[in-house]
Every structure is written in structure tokens, then in C-alpha cells.
């Protein structure tokens, strides 16, 4: 008979390896926030609807509040704390969120920025529709979408020449 037991897992979080012992029912968001002190991913709805808990797992945006930590053993996790430079420099998307006042309460911001980065990696020249489509799993309750969309557009304009030359890869989700 199987019994519940702790599992030793390794997570590479923002480039750093962490050996952790977790219970099977521990959620990724709680391990990141409580064990590793990375409080950027926010606990919002708890049921996979709001996107505030978004982190990247092997480069893909996932909802850390409905992800078992044990199920991502051996994977690379990127949180909002891991996207800037080594000395605390902001990522261009973060800078444009500040410039465009795309942050009001800030609760949705980490998820929004990670999802925006995911979009720009796939598509360096997104249209406004494509941007809105890509962020539709992330809810902002301060009604700040216009600023968020502008910030993502400005960040796209700032992509290095080499990135901007990249052909448009079809987004995972086509704009309607």
C-alpha cells in the first residue's frame, strides 16, 4: 500500500538550485513564497482564474497556485524576482510598466509582466489585439489594462535590433 511521504525535489529557481523536501500536497506558490521567500508570485483567487500566481516553468507561464511542487521536480522556475539584471537592474518590461503607470495596486503586476515577456519572446511585434489576447488570463482589478497594453507596446519597441528582426512566430493563441 502506498503511504503519504515527503519527497526530495530539486527546483532551479531564477538560476539557483534548491534542494527541498516537500509534502505531496504542497503547492508551488507556497514553496516559492514560504520556503524560498520569493513573494513576487501573488496568491489571488486560488482557483486558477486570476493569473496573479503566474510563474514560468521551463519558460512556459503556469499557475503556481494550482501546481503541485512535487510535479515540477527538476524544472526551471522563473519568478518576477528573476527577470531583471544581476545587480537589481529592471527588465525593460518592468521599466515600461513604471513609465506608463501600468501599476496601481501592483497585485497583478508580476503575473502580467511574466506573461508579457512570454508574448514578446514569441512575437516581437505584437498588435494591440494580440497583446490583449495574450494577457486575458491575467485579471487586473484596478482597471489598468490600457496602461498595461501601452507598457507592453513600449517594451516591444525597445527590444534589441536582433530580437526585433526575428520573424513573427505564430502565437500559441491566435488573436480573434
Amino acid at each position, binding site marked *: 500500500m*502506498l*503511504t*503519504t*511521504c515527503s*519527497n526530495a525535489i530539486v527546483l532551479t529557481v531564477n538560476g539557483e538550485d534548491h534542494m527541498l523536501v516537500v*509534502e*505531496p*500536497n*504542497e*503547492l508551488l506558490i*507556497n514553496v516559492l513564497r514560504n520556503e524560498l521567500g520569493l513573494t513576487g508570485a501573488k*496568491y489571488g*483567487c*486560488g*482557483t*486558477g*482564474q486570476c*493569473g496573479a500566481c*503566474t510563474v514560468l516553468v521551463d519558460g*512556459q*507561464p*503556469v*499557475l503556481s*497556485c*494550482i*501546481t*503541485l511542487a*512535487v*510535479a515540477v521536480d527538476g524544472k526551471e522556475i522563473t519568478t518576477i524576482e528573476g527577470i531583471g539584471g544581476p545587480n537589481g537592474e529592471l527588465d525593460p518590461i518592468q521599466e515600461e510598466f513604471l513609465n506608463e503607470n501600468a501599476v496601481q495596486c501592483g497585485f497583478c503586476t508580476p503575473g502580467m509582466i511574466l*506573461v508579457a515577456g*512570454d508574448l514578446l519572446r514569441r512575437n516581437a511585434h505584437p498588435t494591440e489585439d494580440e497583446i490583449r489576447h*495574450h494577457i*486575458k*488570463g*491575467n485579471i487586473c482589478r484596478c482597471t489598468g489594462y490600457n496602461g498595461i497594453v501601452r507598457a507592453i507596446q513600449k517594451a516591444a519597441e525597445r527590444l534589441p535590433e536582433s530580437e526585433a528582426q526575428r520573424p513573427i512566430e*505564430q502565437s*500559441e*493563441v*491566435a488573436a480573434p
Partner: protein
Amino acid sequence: MTVNTRVLVNDFAYVAPSSLDGALRLLDKDGPDAKVLAGGTDLVIQMKLGRRAPRVVIDVSKLEELKQLEAGDTIRIGAGRRYVDVLRFLREQGRYHGLAEAIESVGKIQVLAVGTVGGNLCNGSPAADTAPPLITYDARVRVMSAHAERVIPLGEFYTGVNETVMAPDELMTHIEFDAFPDGRSSAFRKIARVACDISKLTCAVVVQRDGETCTHCRIAFGAVAPIPVRARRVEEAFEGRRIDAPAVRKGAALVCRDISPIDDVRSTELYRTEAAAVVFKEAFETAWERARC
């Protein structure tokens, strides 16, 4: 009592078998107490809300045997293949718009990145987005246990709300359907409260077009009955008939006789009955236009 969705309260054992055989052996042993975890976007939420409390969680997300994507005379989609991969595959095929639209309607990239068609079907939800298009494709699902393998027409897969014919020791390995002949096309439409929400109502249509005549028709609805349902009366009204605007209107008027919607948190019986005809008309006209060779 307020549910605390911050943590998962119940204890369970987690196993991630490295082969299909291993997974089937585990299901053989622990089936009734176990739940299969694929993307987790439904299961973990249900566990948080206290609707499921498995003693064992069997993670099949790493099983290569569940990830096939095959084109040819028969289209095969591994039950454990992520939505994003299936969507890309369907776009490459250039047909099967109905299923592609259903997957797109799931919406948020965070779910498309981990969710699977197999998970969507196995949950047994009458609102499962991929069920109606696959039913209109006459799709079959292949399920295996440690002792046997069987193929089940998706139209016979659902038995009630959140219930399917699958036994506790069975695992869905893939979904398959026959490739479309020329002149056949499909469409899917959904009504939901907001983007990415669970459906209030879905409709999928397949038509085979010969000039202005419809030679084959399949229509299915989601979230309007305890299980995803086919609208056979409406199909009969179209098959072998010449299609024009009055014929489509007449068919749409029959929709209410094939569905049995209820009032729930997402919508009402009256709204669903009225909206079903409208959504059907849109889906039918789209599929019909696409089928023009």
C-alpha cells in the same frame, strides 16, 4: 464553511510512473482511491474545493506513450498531449477548425500550456469544451487497463454529470477520428460570461457539402444537458437536404427539442434554450461556408 484554497488540506501519495505499464499497474492496485493528474488545471482545483479527495495522485504528464500526434487516414491525439501542441498540430492540418476553436476558447495561455484534451474529457464535465467538436467528428477514445484495452465512441463515453464509462483502473491513452474527406468542415461556438470562463453553452457542427446540398451533418452541444449531447433531430433536418436561409432557420428552431438545459450558477434554462438556437445558427453557417470547396 469557507473553503481555504490557499492550501491543499487532504494528504495523498504522489506517484509519477515512468511508463504506461507502470501507470496501469498503479491504477490496477489503487484505482478506486486514485486520481490521474495530467495538467492539473481541473483536478487540483476540485481537490482544493473539497470535491475530490484521492488517496493517491498518479501523475501521467511525463508519459511519452500518451503524447502521440498522428496525421493520416486516422487522426490520433495523445490524451496527455498539451493543448498548445494539439492546437499547433491542428493548425498544420489546416482543417478541424471546430476542435481548434474549442481549444482556443479555453483561453488563458497558462491553461493551454499544461492542460490536455484527455484531461478535459476524463473529468466528465458536461461543459468540457473539446467534447462537442470531438463528438461531431465521430471520435473514439482508447482506454487501457492492466488487463484490457477498449475503444469507446465518444458519443457513448459520458453517463452523467462528472461521470463516464471509464472504470477506476482505466487510463485514456488517445483520442482518434477519421480524417475529413474534401468538402467536410467544422466549427465551434461558445458563450461564456467572460473570456476564459467555464462555458454557459457550446455548440459544434460538422457538415459535408456537395454544392448546395448537405450530405452529412453532426451537431453537438455542451452545457445544455447532464452530458454533452448530439442534436439528432436537427441533423436529420439537414442531411440530404438543400441548404438555404429558411432551411437553417427551420433547423435552428428544432434545437430546443434536442437539449435539456438547467438553471445553475452560470446561466438559466430559458437563456440557454434561446441562446442555443442562435449559437447553433452561427456555428452551422460558419462550418457550411468553410466546407465550400
